[in-house]
């Protein structure tokens, strides 16, 4: 899409957004190429008790954990888990939240109020707490983590889309297209949605970061996928009893989480700067340049 390339080009000019983009690309590559990049691919399942808790060195880039497995390799495979959780949880939240927001925003009925009150309830509870409660109830597993995160995150999209839709419906072009005879479906899908896409994309990016962080928290608390799954949060939990001697055991996954979340946040901020002002400025440029104004 020409639009996407344009956005990327603008994004590249913002240094922090570029950093974010790079970090995420690194994450993606790590996940994709884990089998290739890992020095000890087998260590996801194998254990080597003799080599336990070795500090970072030539053989093991980030050292070994309590089972003697190579932390670096486990991290790479852990990236897959991380991305999987993030993408599915945010994807599911989008799939639920966006239609709810569109419908509630477009129609002015008691149903819209009801939908928004429901999402308010979800928003009122701190996400982590809610996620913990759900995961606790359902039991520690990967699908349950994703479920818990989706359930807690969809209201953010719903509320965002609702607010944007409500403000958009005052725009002349929406009213005039309706006057032209367009059905609500056409209006919502083809006119409202593309115009609210920017804030959704920004929120999705930041949401990825947040979701991943919460997933790590759940993993840390033992509510995530059970061992031997190399989930990052769980790895940190495992490392607790060996600190501060085996510092690498916590530092490596911790650093990975930090960089990933920061990457998504920077990208989200950069996208926010690029996407919205561009549209507004492009429209405004024709109207307010000194040449056209009442000079």
């Amino acid at each position, binding site marked *: 899409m020409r639009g996407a390339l344009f956005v990327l080009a603008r994004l590249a000019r913002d240094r922090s957004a570029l950093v974010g983009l790079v970090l995420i690309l690194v994450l993606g590559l790590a996940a994709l190429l884990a089998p290739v990049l890992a020095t000890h691919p087998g260590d996801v399942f194998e254990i080597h008790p003799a080599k336990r808790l070795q500090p970072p060195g030539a053989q093991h880039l980030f050292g070994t954990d309590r089972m003697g497995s190579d932390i670096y390799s486990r991290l790479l495979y852990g990236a897959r888990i991380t991305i999987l959780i993030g993408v599915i949880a945010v994807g599911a939240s989008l799939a639920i939240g966006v239609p709810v927001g569109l419908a509630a925003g477009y129609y002015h009925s008691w149903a819209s109020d009801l939908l928004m009150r429901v999402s308010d309830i979800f928003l009122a509870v701190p996400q982590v707490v809610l996620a913990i409660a759900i995961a606790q109830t359902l039991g520690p597993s990967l699908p349950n983590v994703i479920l818990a995160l989706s359930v807690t995150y969809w209201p953010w999209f719903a509320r965002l889309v609702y607010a944007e839709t409500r403000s958009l419906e005052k725009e002349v072009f929406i009213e005039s*297209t309706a006057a032209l005879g367009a059905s609500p479906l056409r209006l919502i899908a083809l006119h409202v949605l593309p115009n609210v896409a920017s804030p959704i994309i920004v929120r999705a990016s930041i949401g990825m970061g947040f979701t991943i962080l919460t997933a790590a928290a759940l993993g840390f608390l033992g509510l995530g996928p059970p061992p031997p799954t190399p989930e990052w949060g769980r790895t940190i939990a495992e490392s607790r009893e060996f600190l501060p001697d085996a510092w690498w055991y916590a530092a490596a996954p911790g650093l990975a989480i930090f960089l990933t979340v920061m990457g998504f946040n920077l990208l989200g901020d950069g996208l926010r700067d690029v996407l919205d002002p561009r549209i507004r400025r492009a429209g405004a440029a024709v109207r307010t340049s000194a040449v056209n104004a009442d000079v």
Partner: protein
Amino acid sequence: MSEPRAAPLLEVVDLARYFPIRNAFGLRTGSIRAVDGVSLAVWPGETLGLVGESGCGKSTLGKTVMGIHGPTAGEIRFAGREIGGLGRRERRSVARDLQYVYQDPGASLDPRWKIRRLLHEPLQIHTALSRAERQDQVEAMLREVGLPDAHLDLYPHELSGGQQRRVGLARTLMVRPSLVILDEPTSGLDVSVQASVLKLFRRLQAAFALTYLFISHDLAVVRAMCQRVAVMYLGKVVELAEAAVLFEDPRHPYTRSLLSAVPVIGGRRVTRDFALEGEPPNPRDIPTGCRFRTRCPLVQDLCAVESPPLRSTGGGLVACHFA
């Protein structure tokens, strides 16, 4: 008057549109009676002007006829069919024949759509034409409004204001409506640009056999474009007559004041003669009886008691006890 004509294309009967006034608690404390009992007819092929100052209700009337607002009371008959009470879905089929042009037609274009898609859309909504057939019609329409084919691949913000206006008009006319409501189409335009726009309206009217309801506060423009003119004040029509009659020999005191307020180049100076004092009353607080009585030079006791109906006198209709 010539021999009896066919039925009117548009007829409103006692149309009213009120807007609720709510206090801080959201409770309704009153209404703004933006349109308060208006009856008029628009005949096929004519251009009917609707004039008045801000707050008179002319824009609200246009939007209510169009269905942007629902009527509070009264009837709207279009091509013989009552449309005021239609549900949303049925209303959409009326859109094919009854269209509305905003003051800034360029703003009616989705900024994220290309011109091509914007012009195809009305046909996609209302017809089952194939893509190629639609493209033919789009190109023909572009020629009518005087735009080059190359514009099809541009976005609205890449066109000038005047070009956006033409695209907006083209979009409205794609489905060949029979009646077009023009809401302040020349407001804020430069004199020469206004002339170009008016010429375009005339040409399109001839090309597509359009009927116009021309809403404007600019009396000179209305005089140039309209065969008949209705004058509104605070939600009611106070005078309705053929343009020549209205401008030469206005009967209602408000019409007279309005016309005398308009600077006429080469004529007597308004600044020397103009006599209408005061301001229009607050629309939340409309006077009893005749609405104009607070500023009217002919006011008498009857005016506070009884609101004058529109009655026929000589050249047209006037709502005044003493005109």
